[in-house]
């Protein structure tokens, strides 16, 4: 399985397994930290256009799995394929350039820049690639970037606060700003790490609306890690349950809810 980097082999493997149109697949993805197996042989297939939730008790390996896919960590074993290409071991910025974006658990923004500038940076990255030494024109002189920035701000309903300094936004708006940043990078797949954590019920509701809208209007594929079951049942098409680094269930919300292994993991072995 270590030879998963061989494209021919991986193609053959993905064919029969993922009947639909898989955008992202992981093949025996494994990560060991000093002998501790955090992610253990995970085979995951995320289909184009679906919203997939990843759940599991604390320490189940959810964050590690996402870090492996987004390039923050390098897997000990296994491979990640995105849109038919092997992205295992690429740097995070290369993976983002291929269309995988991420919003972090804590609002990861540029605090002392304006809301507009926050999004504009991602818009430049999407329009001009991962590096460009462009200082002959002003930062406001790129109409396509301005347009993309405006669209994204409108999508998350922050156009009215465009000139505000990002650190002065309320928490929920900061998270929405981060989603706008992630979207401006022009992703096909968006990872969201606990998008409603720390939010008021009202903020949670508007975030859930936003997630649904993104999927419907932009045709995004979304993978979210979330603890709030209400949120999951509203937005997720399918749920993957991780426990001790392994997938113990993968299916529709109803099927997963009734799965005895899941109930065991949540209520039996590990206290949530």
């Amino acid at each position, binding site marked *: 399985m270590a030879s998963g980097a061989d494209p021919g082999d991986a193609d053959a493997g993905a064919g029969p397994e993922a009947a639909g149109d898989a955008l992202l697949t992981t093949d025996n993805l494994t990560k060991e930290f000093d002998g501790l197996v955090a992610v253990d042989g995970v085979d995951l297939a995320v289909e184009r256009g679906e919203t997939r939730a990843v759940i599991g008790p604390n320490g189940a390996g959810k964050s590690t799995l996402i870090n492996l896919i987004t390039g923050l960590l390098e897997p000990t074993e296994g491979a990640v394929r995105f849109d038919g290409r092997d992205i295992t071991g690429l740097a995070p*910025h290369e993976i983002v350039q291929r269309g995988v974006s991420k919003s972090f658990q804590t609002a990861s*923004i540029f605090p002392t820049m304006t809301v507009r500038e926050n999004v504009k*940076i991602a818009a430049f990255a999407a329009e001009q690639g991962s590096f460009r030494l462009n200082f002959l024109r*002003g930062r406001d*002189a790129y109409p396509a970037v301005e347009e993309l920035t*405006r669209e994204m701000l409108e999508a998350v309903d922050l156009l009215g606060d465009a000139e505000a300094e990002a650190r002065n936004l309320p928490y929920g708006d900061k998270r929405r700003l*981060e989603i706008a940043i992630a979207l401006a990078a022009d992703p096909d797949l968006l990872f969201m790490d606990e998008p409603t954590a720390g939010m008021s019920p009202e903020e949670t509701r508007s975030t859930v609306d936003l997630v649904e809208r993104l999927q419907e209007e932009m045709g995004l594929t979304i993978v979210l890690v979330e603890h709030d079951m209400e949120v999951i049942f509203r937005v997720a098409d399918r749920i993957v349950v991780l426990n001790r680094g392994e997938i113990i269930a993968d299916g529709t919300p109803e099927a997963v809810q009734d799965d005895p292994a899941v109930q065991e993991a949540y209520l039996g072995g590990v206290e949530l």
Partner: protein
Amino acid sequence: MSGDERPDGGQVGVVDEELGLLDRFVELKQRQWFLLTGSALVLLVLPFLMIDGLSVLSELLTGTDDFAGYAGLPSLVLVFAIVVIGFDLLLGYTRLLSFGHAAFFGAAAYGAAIFSEQVVASPLAMVVVGGLVGTLLALPIGVLSIRRSGVYFAVLTLTFAQMLFFWARSPGAWLTRGSNGFIPDAELTILGYRPDTPLTEALLVPLPETVFGTVTVEYVLVAVFALLAILMAYRIVNSPYGLVLEAVGQNQQRVNFVGLNVFRYKLMAFVISGAFAAVGGALFAIHEIAVGGGVYPDSLYWIQSGDFVIMTVLGGVGSIAGPVIGAFVFEYIANVINGASTVLFTGPLQPVLGEFTLNFTPIWRLVLGGVFVLVVAFFPDGVRGALASLARRLSDRFGERRREPATADGGDD
């Protein structure tokens, strides 16, 4: 795209946006011309202010002219201003603290000096050659240092500069002439004029002697490069590239996760900043050679690197004016107050200080340190920040009625 579905708000929003964009573009163009002509005017009268102006002030306060500037000071200030404008691109915007910029400054100074003796004593060619030497040196040092951040980055850059210092002092003495300094056997001329020729003599257009009498040809050369440095820094800061540098300073991980190559952005910031230091270093060599001096290993020493940090922080990081002001204050204390070896206060300050005698030479670093501590403790944005808050207070007091609508905006800043 969803704007079409909301005919009331959406449409208006779009028009507003485009107007705003055009306005900002026009404003940027105007600001740039304002900056250029404003800086050029300030640079043109700077020698007058620093020599005659300070002389009047010094006479007024102390009864002596010991605190007046001298002929070479204005160009020395601008030489260091060029270096620290570039240094601030790295420290103030990208938030990378290099402790080894003396390497690029000193290497460029040596490059220019050696070139002037071995090839041709043309100041323009010296700037080009010295600038290239320093910039090319910044590339490998950057590649190796940028991999680490924070203290490790600072110490790595420091180490490279110190290695160069020790090399220049003895193993490399065959090239640098070691501690004796490289004093080139060369006669510098700028467009056919000796560097210390007054501009009023060199120009066919007669300028009023009282104001421009202290402007030399050498000063004009340095001032032209200072103007270029200011313009270049302004372009960088206001470009998409500058936007990313600022973003890297605030949140590297997010920059990575919008798909940008943080390493390359940091490396280029380091090299560009090294290029400013290199051009400053070459001009420093020209300045020293013009008065019969040369380049010494000191320009590679860690104290030189530290002085760049002090100038930048003293003036105020994250701006272009800040470092220029910092270079002025630093060089004024280092050269004028240091040079005012024994001062007897006999002017209006006498009632306060008595017949007070003080020798500044052995304690000028103490004076500098005291000023630095006071400024940084009370004004985190340095002298520039202090001046800006003073200006704001004054305009609040005197311009309240006239600027009523803008008050809400201005107050937030």
